[in-house]
């Protein structure tokens, strides 16, 4: 499974960043091969609106099959859902590997709706 994870720094020990649309960077992690690549999210960093939408679009284009982040707003959710990407919401201070392990062992289930109310504009 190809995961895209919002992280604060470029390291396999990096913690999952709770913000999705305005996360600093993404790790693209393939749990089959263990390969990991890094993708900055700078493009949307300054966006006044629609950061989540743009980010979700980029994440889909990276080839994500699942997204791991803290919270996902309704707009980003709509985009990811339309693309058939699963969304996992992580609470607490997990690293990339810990998070993937918990998901693959079935301890964390995919979200069934946006968990933070979105904001207009």
């Amino acid at each position: 499974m190809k995961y895209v994870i919002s992280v604060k720094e470029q390291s396999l020990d990096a913690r999952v960043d709770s913000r999705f649309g305005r996360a600093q960077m993404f790790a693209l992690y393939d749990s089959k091969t263990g390969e990991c690549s890094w993708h900055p999210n700078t493009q949307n960093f300054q966006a006044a609106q629609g950061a989540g939408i743009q980010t979700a679009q980029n994440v889909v284009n990276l080839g994500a099959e699942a997204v791991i982040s803290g919270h996902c707003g309704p707009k980003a959710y709509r985009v990811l859902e339309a693309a058939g990407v699963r969304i996992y919401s992580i609470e607490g201070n997990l690293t990339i590997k810990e998070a993937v392990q918990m998901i693959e062992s079935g301890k964390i289930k995919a979200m069934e709706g946006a968990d933070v109310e979105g904001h207009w504009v």
Partner: protein
Amino acid sequence: MKDTGSESLKVVVCSGKGGTGKTTLALSLAWTLGHAEEFSMPVRLLDCDVEEPNCHLFLRGNYAEQIPVLAEKPVFDMQLCIGCGRCANKCRYNAIAVVKGKPLVFNDLCHSCGVCGAVCPHDAITLKPEPIGEVLVDGSHRPFSFMFGRLQIGESQSPMVIGKMLEHVLSTGLNIIDGPPGTACNTVKAIGAADKVILVTEPTPFGANDLALALDLCAQLHKPCGIVINRSDNNDGLIEALAEEYQVPVIGKIPFKREYARACSDGLILTAEYPELRAEVIGSFSRLLSAAAVPAVVAADKIEHDECRIDSGSAADRKSDDYQELTVLSGKGGTGKTTVTGALIALSDSLVAADCDVDAANLRLLMNDRVLYTERACLGSEAVIEQRKCIKCGKCFEQCRFAAIDFDAAAGTYRVNELNCEGCGLCVEICPAKAISEKRAETGNLMLSESARGRLVHAKLAPAAENSGKLVSMVRSLAFAIADQQQKEWLLVDGPPGTACPAIASVTGSDRVMLVTEPTIAAVHDLERIIKLVRHFGIKPEIVINKADINPTYARKIRDLADTAGYRILGEIPFDETVKEAIKAGVPIVDFNEGPASQAVKNIWNRIKETRK
């Protein structure tokens, strides 16, 4: 009073910021002139403060006519769409996403610029009108006809609602327009239509600060103005000096009286209740007609910049959990938000402050700060027409949704009106001669200050600049970084008025939101609107009632509202004459004296600290 001579006169009542008495004056003017026998023209009052309309609360209107305000939103023909993503790519507002060949539209982000339809290679997009607000008209209201506009909460296109209202001005008669607060695009839209402008202010350093911003805007728009000093105590030197500097006359004064404040809080029109004010209001209007002047351009404190940096605000747009962010909002100015914020800043010993009212930042007046660092923020873009290439076909002029292309009939040339240009990019796409390109537009300045109270991040929005919400995000970003770096306990955010982009940008992701309100009919109305906004972010607001004893009926309404919804009342501040003296002296109330208001604010701060999450 002499007649105006012209068939239609449009007078816009504005202030750099809300809460100075703009609505009070607009209503009094309409009521008094409507009744005045010597004034023969019909009068119409238009409430163009569409984010927080209030005038209707003072009137018993019968809105027989309700006009929807429609904005065009894209609709896709899936038979034609090939999922190429060009529309999503060109949309400046991130309102379209295309994933796996499927387009998704987010109507609430759309600014109806039409660029998606123009760039679609297969004509798969049509634009369909959708409601974003409404205009309510009471044509038979007496002694003046009345209308007001209302933007749907969550929508951002307030200039479009104002534009709709301006289509309904009296073609014969006097139109009094209650304008929006601030100096951003909505105010430009209202003032742009004015023949004369009345600027309402109050004799405090804050009033002077905001008045100067409004005067700068009127100078830029070449509009003749007159100044009315509200809550005057005949010690108005600060405002009079400013008026002289800008060469604009002071056309009237409304004295400061507690009974006037009380009457307004009950939803009464001042001149209807207090006949002694009628002559002053009529006199002000006559002086406006005879003496209004376009403000002289005053040299601002110029800051030198080398170039426009694109990636402004390198600070992190994320928060650590080491400090708590408390955002203070009021829905509208004038309820005492800055007074309370200023006092909290004085009380805390571990804090960074962020002034997110980028339209009219004034927290620094209470902090006695020194600017450490200024950065020019260029967040938007603007079109430029290269005259040499222009074939004068007029396509840009016809298709721009924001009336941002001017045609100079004498010279036969087309030019971009920078104040109106949103930078949507439509003209760039449709120009057959490829004569239009984009340049980065200045949004304003981002500043970091040092003071004895701690650091302050603030900004100054360029007049009519787009992207005020973005500038708010930048102010918060920088403040996050400073709070982190200095390991402070608190980040205090003084929020902007209204419910549109800047307010949204200051609330999203905050830990706590404190709403400062007062027991008046207008403030309670605004409180309900701002609560809707805050709730949208999943935040339970906490409430402070300022001047709590001025009107027991409305104070009870606020308590009931908080009770029912389970919102905590952090405290009530009694009406205290010395607050005004403290404001006038530019000193936080808690440093000024130990009076009842000062004590109340201290208790509020203790309660906030006790519940630090």
